Each structure stands twice: as structure tokens, then as C-alpha cells.
């Protein structure tokens, strides 16, 4: 039962990670850990974030014992404002390859040339997603894949979205997953909630019969944690039951998140 931090720790040098998060705290914890781990290992970390999230990442890094002034001074923490950077890449509602390549490429090349490893965190795609510009987000993810193909630089992307969201979000989320190698769980308690919801709605015996089928199902793009794989499978294969299971899972999570 991997939690978000364990999933980040288990990722590799070629991974293009994605996390769908519901709360800024979840993002700060997971992405903050991804960034802090890189710095702790002596890597150069490129962070392209909104100012609000940067403040939260600073707190996470400080809590992890990172000397922020030192890593900024020696160039191991390289930061960009996500919105300003995105604006510089866009034309007529879409990112432009040569602008992306000439902006991001030299930053990564310089970081790689330092040695010691590089990792990157980005949320320009989330700005596009929040604006409803999915096609631009997908195109930008494709540009990242092109630029990362020649460099051993893992990238962590974050989207404010939920796999337990409305059915209308289903296809867009699947389109995003195709562009990544691994989905980081949105929260550690999702698996237990989804398992319980499936058993309550379909019955324990049916749940146990469906489990090997869901586990054997190949997904397009990112490897999925169990809970997310089960939700996507239900939405794809038993959409009428999926809504009920998802509703139950939301209730379970809400009840367990409520103050005592």
C-alpha cells in the first residue's frame, strides 16, 4: 500500500511523474519531499512553481533540514515563476516548441553539466489545466517528454484534480496519464477507501473476483497505484457502478477526514 512519499522514493531517473492532488497540503508534502530529496542527495533541482506553492515548498525544504540560502547561493536550487515562464512560451493559446526548447533546454543542460544529478518539478501544465486548456497542457507535456528523452532528468508534474471527480473529468485525466510514466497517489488513505467502497457496493466476493482482472489490466501511459487503477477500470468498464463506488469512497474519505 504505497503512500505518496514511498512512491516518490521508488521512482527512477527516467520517470515522468504526475500527481493529481486535492489539497495544497498534499502537494506541499509530496512535491516538497521530491525537491528536498534531490537536494539532500546533492542534485540540482529545477523548480517551476507558482509563488504560493513556492512558499509551501520552502517550508517543506526547511522542515527537511535543507539550508535554503546555501542551495540558492550555490545554484543547486533553480527556481522559476510558473505563470511568467508559461506566458513566455505561449502563442495563440498553445506553447511553442522553439520557445520551450530555448528556455528550458539551456537550464537543464547547465544543471546536468554541474554533475551530481538533476531533477525537475513543474506546474505550468496545471495552470493550463485549471484554465481548461487541456490541449495546450498535453502539448506541453509532450515537449517535456521530448526534452527529457536525451537527459536523465526525472520530472514531477502536479495537477489539481481528483480521480474521484466527475465522470466528465475522466477522459481528460486519461489523456494526461498517457504523457507520464507513473502516477503518484493523491493521498495515502485512498486505497483503503476505494477497496471498502467496492466491497460495500459490489460485495466482498465480487470484489475479490474482480481484483485479479483489474490488476492484470494494462493502462495506456502511467503506471497506476491500485486505488487509481481500480477507479479508472470501473469508469471504463462498469460506468454505472463506478459512480456509486466513487460516491461511497468520497463519503468514506470525508467521514475519515472529519474532525472527531
Amino acid at each position, binding site marked *: 500500500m504505497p503512500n505518496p512519499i514511498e512512491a516518490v522514493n521508488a521512482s527512477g531517473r527516467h520517470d515522468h511523474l504526475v500527481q493529481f492532488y486535492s489539497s495544497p497540503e498534499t502537494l506541499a508534502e509530496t512535491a516538497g519531499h521530491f525537491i528536498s530529496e534531490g537536494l539532500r542527495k546533492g542534485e540540482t533541482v529545477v523548480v517551476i512553481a507558482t509563488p504560493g506553492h513556492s512558499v509551501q515548498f520552502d517550508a517543506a525544504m526547511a522542515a527537511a533540514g535543507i539550508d535554503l540560502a546555501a542551495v540558492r547561493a550555490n545554484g543547486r536550487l533553480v527556481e522559476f515563476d510558473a505563470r511568467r515562464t508559461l506566458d513566455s512560451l505561449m502563442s495563440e493559446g498553445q506553447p511553442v516548441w522553439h520557445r520551450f526548447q530555448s528556455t528550458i533546454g539551456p537550464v537543464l543542460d547547465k544543471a546536468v553539466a554541474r554533475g551530481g544529478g538533476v531533477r525537475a518539478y513543474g506546474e505550468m501544465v496545471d495552470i493550463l489545466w485549471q484554465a481548461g486548456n487541456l490541449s495546450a497542457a498535453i502539448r506541453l507535456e509532450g515537449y517535456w517528454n521530448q526534452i527529457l528523452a536525451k537527459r536523465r532528468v526525472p520530472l514531477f508534474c502536479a495537477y489539481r484534480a481528483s480521480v474521484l471527480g466527475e465522470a466528465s473529468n475522466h477522459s481528460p485525466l486519461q489523456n494526461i496519464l498517457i504523457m507520464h510514466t507513473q502516477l503518484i497517489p493523491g493521498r495515502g488513505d485512498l486505497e483503503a477507501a476505494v477497496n471498502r467502497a467496492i466491497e460495500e457496493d459490489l460485495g466482498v*466476493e*465480487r470484489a475479490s*473476483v*474482480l481484483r485479479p*482482472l483489474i490488476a492484470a*489490466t494494462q493502462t*495506456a501511459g502511467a503506471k497506476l497505484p491500485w486505488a487509481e487503477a481500480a477507479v479508472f477500470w470501473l469508469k*471504463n*468498464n*462498469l460506468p454505472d457502478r463506478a459512480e456509486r463506488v466513487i460516491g461511497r469512497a468520497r463519503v468514506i474519505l470525508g467521514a475519515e477526514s472529519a474532525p472527531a
Partner: protein
Amino acid sequence: MNGQAFIILLVEDDLNDQELFKYAVGKSDTTARLAVACDGEEAIAYLAGTGVFAERERHPFPDLVVLDLNLPKVSGIDVVRWIRAQPALKALPVTILSSSAETTDVETAYAAGANSYLVKSSELGILTGIVRGLCEQARIRAEFRGAEAP
């Protein structure tokens, strides 16, 4: 689990794979009814209810289609595309069961409109587990269809 009858249409040209699947269904569920089409053209005729499949009582409409990719006459991908182009078949679940685990095949199948993609296993235990799940999926759908019927 109750005894709701349901139908799976297996589209598979390899006789060994057909027999393995039939065996796994037999081990999994006694209420399952399995129809078999040997190529893509036959699968389309079955679903359209044309030619030798015109009589719906003998060739009932399936609750689930399990489809190989590499088929004679019409490929599995083209069968999926044909299914998704038929307004009456838009909700029919299609699971690909292929020997290929290639990323491009998986992505192409989903892009064409497949609901799910499985890689064939020669291990009977694994195959039986998967087929039990497919039978359960088809039964749940049949129950829903039954509940919807006037």
C-alpha cells in the same frame, strides 16, 4: 453472486487460445454463455446480426466482447473502431486480449475505443483468475441491463 445468465463474445482465430479460454470459462462460471467469432469480419457480422448470425435467439447480443488484436480479414483495432462507430454499440464493453504488451498496441487500442487491455497468459491459474473477473464483469452488466429492461 446470483445465477444471472450472460453472454461473452470471444473473437479469436487461434484454436488453442479459443480452447484455453473456453476451459477457463468452464472452470469459472457455469452460467456463462460463450459465443466465438474466428475473425474480425465474423465478429462484425455477429454484432450486426447479419448473415448466419441474423437469428438473435440463437446468437444473442453479448454483454462483453473479448477481442484479439491480430485477426484475419478485419483487425481487432478495426473491429473496435467499427463498434464505436455504431450508436447502438457505444456502451458495449470491449476488452482486448492480446499476446502483445507493446506500449503502442495498448495506446492504439485505447485510442480506438477499447475499454480494457489484457495480455494473454499461458499460465492457467492466471488466465482462470482473469476469465473469472471477465465473467463477473459481464454478469454485472447483464444484471444492469436486466434492471433497465421494461
